[in-house]
Structures are given as C-alpha cells and as structure tokens.
C-alpha cells in the first residue's frame, strides 16, 4: 500500500529535485494563493526551495542554518536549522538519513485510499508542536506526486510535483547561500 511506498521512497531517495506548484486555501475557501518554483532536497537536512512565481523567494537549508531571501522585502533572514524546519513538508523530505526511523518517531501513518488517481498515505504528527494537524502524500506507483498539509487554522497547503528526479547529482553550491550585497541580513 501507500505506506510501504512511502517507506521505500524515503529509504531509497537521498537527493531529490522537482518542480512544484503550491496552492494554499484558507479556511473560508476563498482566494486560493498559488505559487510555483523548484525544490531540491539532499538528506540529511539540506534543501533549496526557490519560489519563482508570482514572486521570487529563496529558502536554503545548508544543514546548520536556514536562509530566507526575499528580494521584495530586501531582507535575508537566518535561522538555526533545527526549529525553523520544524513540522513542515520539507522536514519530512529532508529528514535525517534514517527515513523510516524519523518518520516513525514523529508521525503515525495511515492508508488514506485512492483519490485524484493517486494512492495516499496520511501522516499524523505524534506531538502537538509539529504545528499542523495532518499531512498526506500521494503516490502514482512508486512516484511521489503530491503532498497536502492541513494546518491548525483550517488552511490547506497542496503541493504538486512535476518531473521529480530521484537521486540526481546536486552541485553543492546550490545548498549554500551567500547574501547579495546591499540586502539586510537579520540573523539569530
């Protein structure tokens, strides 16, 4: 079932690159906000989340720190890796190398059946601090195609992946970040 697929996926995927489309729908269902870009994950703990449309924003996790660069806000925010990644879809994909172990420690898993042509597994956080209610991952065969995150405010964040590559080689520079000159850097 989908749980087994998720385990296989996490255990056999050390690096990952995909195009994503993200749609956030608020509890009143009005005005979904759509964004798209490219994401890269290198386990354990490194990722690059580049939002390209409708605005540009870059998040880089280099293993120690998370860099958030927003050209419109003219700011780079730097956080320690541990807490900022917290209970986010990124933390599941970029989690420590022990895929299944991290998963089992933080989530209880449930088969969630078939929908939109995908087989879904539901991950329920075991602790309250995860900051969201549940997470669903949708597979087509062994391919991860979508993720849905239901937060504690009735908001749903859906992520749809395109041309997902498993274990591509990733240039190390993509998982580092140097702030451009003339931009304020706020770091903890």
């Amino acid at each position, binding site marked *: 079932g989908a749980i087994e697929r998720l385990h296989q996926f996490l255990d056999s995927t050390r690096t990952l690159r995909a195009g994503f489309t993200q749609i956030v729908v608020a509890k009143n269902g009005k*005005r979904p906000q759509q964004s798209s870009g490219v994401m890269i994950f290198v386990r354990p703990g490194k990722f690059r989340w580049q939002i390209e449309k409708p605005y540009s924003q870059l998040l880089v996790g280099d293993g120690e720190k998370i860099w958030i660069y927003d050209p419109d806000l003219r700011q780079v*925010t730097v956080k320690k890796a541990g807490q900022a990644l917290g209970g986010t879809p990124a933390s599941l994909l970029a989690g420590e190398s022990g895929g299944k172990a991290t998963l089992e420690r933080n989530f209880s898993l449930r088969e969630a059946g078939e929908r939109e042509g995908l087989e879904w597994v539901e991950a329920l956080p075991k602790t309250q601090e995860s*900051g969201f209610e549940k997470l669903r991952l949708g597979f087509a065969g062994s391919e991860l195609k979508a993720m849905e995150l239901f937060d504690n405010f009735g908001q749903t964040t859906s992520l749809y992946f395109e041309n997902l590559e498993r274990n591509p080689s990733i240039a190390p520079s993509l998982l580092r970040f140097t702030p451009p000159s003339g931009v304020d850097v706020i770091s903890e």
Partner: protein
Amino acid sequence: CASLTPAPVPPPPRDALAAFSLEGRFALNHEAKSYSGRISWTYRPNTSELLLSSPFGQGLAEIVTDADGARLTGSDGRIRTAPDAETLTREVLGYPLPLKQLADWVRGRTPPGSGRLDPLGRVLSLQQDGWQIDYGYGDDAPGSPPMRIIARQGEHVELRVFVDAWHSLSPEEAHP
C-alpha cells in the same frame, strides 16, 4: 523610488479599502530576532483577522480583534486574550505592535497634511507616534494603495510588508 515589479492585477483604489483583505509577505525584525512568512489579513473597522503563516504555507499564529478585545491562537492551539492588540502583542513579542494604526499605514492612509508625497500625491514617507513608515508602489495610478510598507520604531523594531494582492470587501460581504 523606482516603482517595483508591476502588480499583476491593478489593486483597487485606496478609498475602496474601508474594509479589505490582503495577502502578502512579512518580516518582523526586533534586534537579532526575526519572524518572516506570509500574511493574510481581513480587516473591517470593527473586526480584524490576521493570519501569519510560514513560507511553506502552514499557519503559525492568528490574531483576531473585535468588540470584545484581541485573541491570539498559536499553531499549537494555545489561545491568549487581551483587551486590545497592542497589549496582546506586547505580551507575546515583548513590544507592542499598533495594529489599528498598521491598518491605516498599509493602505497608505495618512492624516491630512502629514507625510511626504510623491508626484502622484501618494504618501512616500510618514512619521507617526515614534514610527517612521516608508512606502513603495507597484504602479503609477494616483489612487493606488502601496505594495511595500516598511515601518520602523527607533533602531530596534521593524516590520516589512509586501502586498501580493489587495481585495476590497463590500460592507455586506459575509464575514469570512
């Protein structure tokens, strides 16, 4: 200053924003600490719902203010209440955020005769109650609300907001 990347959809005029909702991004800086992510704000003169989310989309905190006072719900479900948003934000952050005034600042509404205007008559900078507010616009329509708002209080508190979408709420639009 040079206008920003043009807004995809021209925003409604400032004077149609008595009640509004906006979606955008924010960064709240205080000494070395910074909160940043997405902001969704639904505002009416007597009620306001402000949801702050992480860059990945999931909600972090929601501040609701109405006739009874101000209420903050965290992502862990904990709820804090206070008579008003200033008291609430002081308790949570350690310094007060003037949300009532912020609703005017983000719309580029200024007391008559105050603030420096741009050639189109839109406010470019304003000083009010110890805050310095600077504005950026995404188009050149005289009536437009701002797209970027940076509000600083002295050297240590700074709020940056970039509005990706403005919506004017008609008075009878049902409370979301």
